[in-house]
């Protein structure tokens, strides 16, 4: 039972990174991509129909984490306290700035633009650091309570992940703009995506090689996820080369989901580890009666959601043009 719900949680979490990753990427690339206000609105408008839907995958994932694995939730957020706080500060700034930036036609927008760029950057860094720590093992006290040691959260390995995530999301954002951005800017988006390929590949190689030495208690899943990551990178790179930008976008989305997949499967059934401490999925899980309640609500909601979001994608799969409704 716990394994099934762990997979559902994995689906939501991976879905969040696959989708919201390009939101943050487009946010960070915004000032470098196009400076004219009209084009900038079209760039943001490319995200438009997907933005709200993408961001709430996180809300759903954390809700399910609380409902299905309350004893993991209580350990993991408090254990990485400072990183979760910076993540939320970044996320709040980014989400609010996106939604409020373009609400008045005649207003100045510099502060909101700064909020989008800065918020996206802090969000990407914090996610990288957070997941890097999860993969490495959170610095907790031996009984699983927070150690309160802030500096331990910023280990070199985690810092590598923080920077890696910035490159990864930028790369994903560029791939997204190649598909959905204004048609006349596709070339620029592709050049950006090519430019970010090298840092992303470097991150992949170093994180994997370093991980082989730095991590212990790892199961075979880790190697499999690393394999998927390299394959996804290759697919995306080939997609860019062959001008099949949708293929490139899907590849980059799969790659963005890989770190979360890795953190969830690396030591399964242990789902949270620290030096001298491990929490298994069974220990983290809620009671069987509560799972039974969740089983009534979660599958229908997820089904409706996947169908509706798929239809949204179908309806807005072409690049933004003169007729597009921008909103953001």
């Amino acid at each position, binding site marked *: 039972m716990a394994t099934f719900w762990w997979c559902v949680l994995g689906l939501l979490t991976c879905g969040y990174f696959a989708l919201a990753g390009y939101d943050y990427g487009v946010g960070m690339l915004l000032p470098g991509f196009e400076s004219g206000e009209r084009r900038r609105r079209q760039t943001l408008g490319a995200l438009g129909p997907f933005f709200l839907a993408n961001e709430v995958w996180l809300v759903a994932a954390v*809700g*399910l984490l609380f409902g299905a694995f309350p004893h993991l939730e*209580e350990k993991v957020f408090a254990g990485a306290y400072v990183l*979760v706080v910076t993540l939320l500060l970044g996320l*709040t700034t980014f989400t609010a700035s996106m939604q409020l930036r373009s609400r*008045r036609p005649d207003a100045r927008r510099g502060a909101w633009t700064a909020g989008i760029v800065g918020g996206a950057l802090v969000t990407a860094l914090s996610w990288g650091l957070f997941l890097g720590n999860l993969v490495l093992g959170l610095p907790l006290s031996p009984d699983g309570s927070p150690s309160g040691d802030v500096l331990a959260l910023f280990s070199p390995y985690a810092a590598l992940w923080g920077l890696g995530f910035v490159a990864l999301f930028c790369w994903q954002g560029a791939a997204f703009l190649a598909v959905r951005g204004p048609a006349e800017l596709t070339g620029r988006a592709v050049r950006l995506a090519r430019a970010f390929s090298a840092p992303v590949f470097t991150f992949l190689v170093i994180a994997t090689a370093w991980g082989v030495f730095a991590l212990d208690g790892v199961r075979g899943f880790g190697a499999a996820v690393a394999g998927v990551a390299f394959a996804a990178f290759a697919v995306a790179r080939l997609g860019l080369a062959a001008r099949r930008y949708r293929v490139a976008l899907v590849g980059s989305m799969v790659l963005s989901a890989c770190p979360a997949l890795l953190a969830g499967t690396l030591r399964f059934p242990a789902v949270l580890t620290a030096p001298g401490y491990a929490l298994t999925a069974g220990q983290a899980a809620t009671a069987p009666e509560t799972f039974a309640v969740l089983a009534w609500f979660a599958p229908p909601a997820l089904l409706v959601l996947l169908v*509706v979001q798929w239809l949204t994608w179908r309806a807005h799969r072409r690049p933004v043009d003169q007729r597009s*409704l921008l909103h953001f």
Partner: protein
Amino acid sequence: MNALPVARLQFATTTSFHFLFVLLTLGLVTLVAVMQTRWTLGGKPELLRMTRFWGRLYVINYALGIVTGIVMEFQFGLTWTGLSAFAGDVFGAPLAIETLVAFFLESTFLGLWIFGFGRLPRWLHLTLIWLVTLTAYASALFIMLANSFLQNPVGSHVEGGTLRLDDFGALFTNPALVASLPHVLGAALVTGGFFVVGVSAWHFLKRTTEVEFFRRSMRLGVVAALAGSIFVVNQGFAQFGELKTYQPDKLGMSVVGAPLGAMIGLGFLMFLCSIAGTVLLIRNWVTRARFLHYLMVAAIPLPFVAAILGWLVRELGRQPWLVWGKLRTADAIADVPAGQILFSFIAFSLLFAALAVADWVLLARVAKRGPDPAEAAAELPVLSGV
């Protein structure tokens, strides 16, 4: 330094911000849905412009509802880890359902509604705004259900130091929920009504040329405020009876007295205003009484103040318990150093204050600008549907 007061203050601040935004969200979306329904049923073009104008204000307000909600959701795991450890097996379920069934779907449907303006068939687009409304109400139901469980932990028993779920259905019939949910929903409707009436009154004071537009808006707002305030007052007093069964001493507490008195006073004041407004609907007197318009603009904040007071009564009256009679607030706080909690409290409070002020200024400016002219041609690219 003691972390407990900082952590409590932080949760109270986040929740207050969240409450201020979701209250207007709930009330306003209902009114927008009614406007769009009347237009779809063959109403005048004015009704479509009303849907767009009030819908635009709704979307601006919604933005901060989301972000404060996300921070609240994380805060359980950041600071109140004892709650998950003790009651997570029961309390987690309504929160998970709220995010999956309500919040997740609400945002998806709202996105479709915003981007469906003029693109989707009329009836489908109307269905979307009602789905947004229903999922918003479902959100309120599950959050109030979770809160009511903290007030009165029914349907569960303590086993081996943690709470176990016996009967999920009992959470729906919780006496702490049955009267308070309609009370809160009524308050949301009053908030939406007062907001629409107040903004319309401002335009009448400025001698707007959009007389028909704001007359219709004001009439709808007055009716909503009346319907809502009947609910609020009625269900407010109904709670006194229910309270006796699960928290008999709550209203006798000294911290509760002042906010309770002020809330009841404000409630009756708003009820009387709504009745007066309804009487003045005869021959549209309400749109011509200029001296009343000043009062209507000034009254926009009243429902917000009353709601925060009501929330203080409910939550302060629960102390020192987090889960009534079962888990003390002091025992639920995480083992995080007080300095880190203080840092996050200051950072979030400053950020929320800045964003809230920016949001309200934006709301006021867009409200003051009024609806787009009726004959405006659609510009290309199409900047926004609402």
